[in-house]
């Protein structure tokens, strides 16, 4: 029943889960909290990478789709104590629905028009929360109770660690499902549409439907990430889902590597750790406040620029190239061939 691809992906996910659980048990509560953030962003960026990297549709509005998931979660949990899995699935469904509606419109748009439309989503959607503040809590937003760790883990078990475990599990399940989807005929049609729409249509692919499917899958991921984000931060407020978040998600997949799931993982690590590392510089370094206050943003921008210059294909692309380069060198040495290796095409294909 298990195809070789699925069993390979499942095996990798189980090994990763065990390793991450072990890691999570060895680190402090705040590191667990950070680990959970990485896992949550992996879900969102993996979905976005499928849409933008694999299917070629640029979305500057994924932060808004995360907001749909987060607000669904907050509203579901207001006055009710629903099981986590149900909340996650309902939030995912809510964001998928919004994604489907928007995806139909998006499938008719190309390039800058698509970027503009998705940007409008990012700007407009969070404003609904302020407009209807009696439902969505306005600028202060809605609070979300943290997921309670099961009692068999002991009373001293940090809630942050439990949150990390949940986020890691959900992220790995998402990655396995997306990994399989990309290897399937659906995944191939995503790429075919990205590479040449006319050719894809001639090959019998329904271009518009493929684009809508990609948008829905990607929105589902954003909704799931948004739901976990609400649990993680304990608060759903419009300021948390501004245009900046959407742009951060895009920059994460560009830094990590467009079109691959591992690129989404690298990008999420950068997205979480760089601001984490730079915050607090204002008070710890003795800089003039006008410099120190803006230093974290400056460093974040500098990391983006340097990453683009050094590894234009993202961290994932850079690593693949290094690996292929090493292979080519090694093969060259074995055959005593002192060939020049081309950086842009190290495998010599």
């Amino acid at each position, binding site marked *: 029943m298990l195809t070789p691809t699925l069993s390979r992906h499942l095996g990798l996910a189980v090994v990763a889960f065990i390793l991450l659980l072990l890691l999570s048990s060895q680190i402090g509560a705040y590191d667990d*909290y950070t680990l959970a953030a990485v896992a949550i962003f992996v879900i969102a960026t993996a979905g976005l990478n499928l849409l933008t990297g694999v299917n070629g549709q640029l979305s500057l509005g994924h932060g808004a789709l995360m907001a749909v998931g987060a607000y669904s979660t907050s509203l579901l949990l207001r006055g009710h104590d629903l099981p986590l899995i149900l909340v996650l699935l309902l939030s995912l469904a809510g964001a998928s629905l919004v994604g489907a509606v928007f995806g139909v419109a998006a499938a008719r748009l190309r390039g800058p028009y698509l970027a503009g439309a998705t940007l409008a989503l990012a700007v407009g959607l969070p404003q609904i929360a302020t407009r209807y503040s009696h439902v969505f809590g306005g*600028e202060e937003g809605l609070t979300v109770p943290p997921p309670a760790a099961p009692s068999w883990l002991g009373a001293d078990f940090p809630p942050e660690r439990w949150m990390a475990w949940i986020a890691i599990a959900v992220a790995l399940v998402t990655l396995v499902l997306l990994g399989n989807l990309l290897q399937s005929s659906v995944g191939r049609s995503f790429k075919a549409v990205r590479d040449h729409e006319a050719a894809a249509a001639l090959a019998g692919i329904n271009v518009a439907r493929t684009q809508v499917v990609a948008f829905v899958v990607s929105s589902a991921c954003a909704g799931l990430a948004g739901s976990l984000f609400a649990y993680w931060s*304990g608060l759903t*407020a419009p*300021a948390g889902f501004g245009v900046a978040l959407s742009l951060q998600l895009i920059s994460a997949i560009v830094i990590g590597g467009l079109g691959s799931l591992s690129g989404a993982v690298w990008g999420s690590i950068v997205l979480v750790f760089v601001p984490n590392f730079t915050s607090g510089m*204002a*008070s710890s370094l003795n800089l003039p406040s006008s410099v120190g206050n803006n230093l974290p943003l400056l460093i974040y921008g500098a990391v983006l620029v340097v990453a683009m210059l050094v590894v234009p294909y993202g961290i994932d692309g850079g690593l693949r190239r290094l690996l292929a380069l090493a292979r080519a060198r090694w093969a060259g040495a074995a055959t005593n061939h002192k060939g020049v290796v081309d950086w842009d095409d190290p495998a010599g294909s």
Partner: protein
Amino acid sequence: MNIQINHMTSAMSRIAIGCALALLAACGESGGTTNTASAPGITTSEIKIGSTQPLTGPAAPGYSEIAPAANAYFQYVNAHGGIFGRKITYEYLDDGYNPTTTSSVTRKLVLQDKVFAVFNALGTPTHLAVVDYLNSEKVPDLFVASGCNCWNDPSTHPYTFGWQPDYTIEGKILGQYIQQNLAGKKVGYFYQNDEFGLDGVKGLDQQISSVASRQNYVPTNTNVAPQIAALQASGAQVVVSFSIPAFTALALLTAAKLHYNPVWVVSNVGSDVPTLTGLLTKFSSGAAGGQLLTGMVTDAYLPLVTDASNPWITLFKKIHDQYIQSLPWDGNVLYGMGAAYAFVQAIKAAGRNPTRAGIVHTLETTKLTGGPGLAPYGYGSNNHLGYLGVQVATIGADGNATTVGPVYTSSDSGSINQYSGTPATPPSNGIPS
């Protein structure tokens, strides 16, 4: 017999000595003469506290000076022997006035940096995001930099204390001023659409019976032209503004553009003259400036920054000049130092080896007096309010504020009373004893 008595006395004296030793040991734990690591964030040589501040983002103009100013006062205290020999380390992190960021950086302070207390964390919407978390972790949440009356809730948030007068009290006293001095004029409101603005409006409404127009803004949308035009259309001759400095400036500039000249009554947090002058000049690219502030009505609960004869101003100005010369000398700096002074008072009162529960107990049972404030503190076991009142002030053509009338105190629902206490003077070394 005699021998027996001797035996008894020696036994008794042994018990007595034992008791005395036990007492001394007990003293060593809570008072005593040696420093112990009595709580998270407290070592034998350091007191580590943290804060979340808008160092960037819409609330940064003006407010970003508060934490460096508090830190300057702590450095001054550290340079003069510290608190029972301990140095204060103040770690303030940027949250960009974004509640979601506040939530994550507060966890960094508590879980990773392991601060003893969160001090003077700034903002109503931002701090509301973490007040439950801090209380569930039993982290003292002292002197929140916001006048929301939501901090005064000892039964649900026993670890949280406000500091500045709450916005409802401020609204009531400003409303009373309008009733008495601007009677017969049409009044309009302009306020931030969250607990900050709504609390202020709650106070105003207790004094002002008819309101021509109520307009609000959200800090993420900088276009306030529709609101100001609506106020103008309503014929409001007095506009009361519960706004952060950037939005006070935007409102004043928009009104000037529309040739609309009401009397502006701006609550304390949005009325600092140097901050507003800078913002007005910047937003209008130099076309306007401080002249728009002439005649503005506001209120104060600390001495006026321009009052060079006030000993508190002399003290804080001296510390400003020594440690943070690059920042302007303005109301934000004064605010940061005033709050820092209150923290030093509280931590000293909590004894040589304070605990988290201990400082809460101290604030509830020991009246903090002798600080720079114009009105008394409200702290008690059923009350976590800071300053209980304000004094109204007007801004002259030279940009200097002048106080008008007496200091009034009040509570959220009680009457407004005149306060007649005499202002305290600072200790000679500038550090609370």
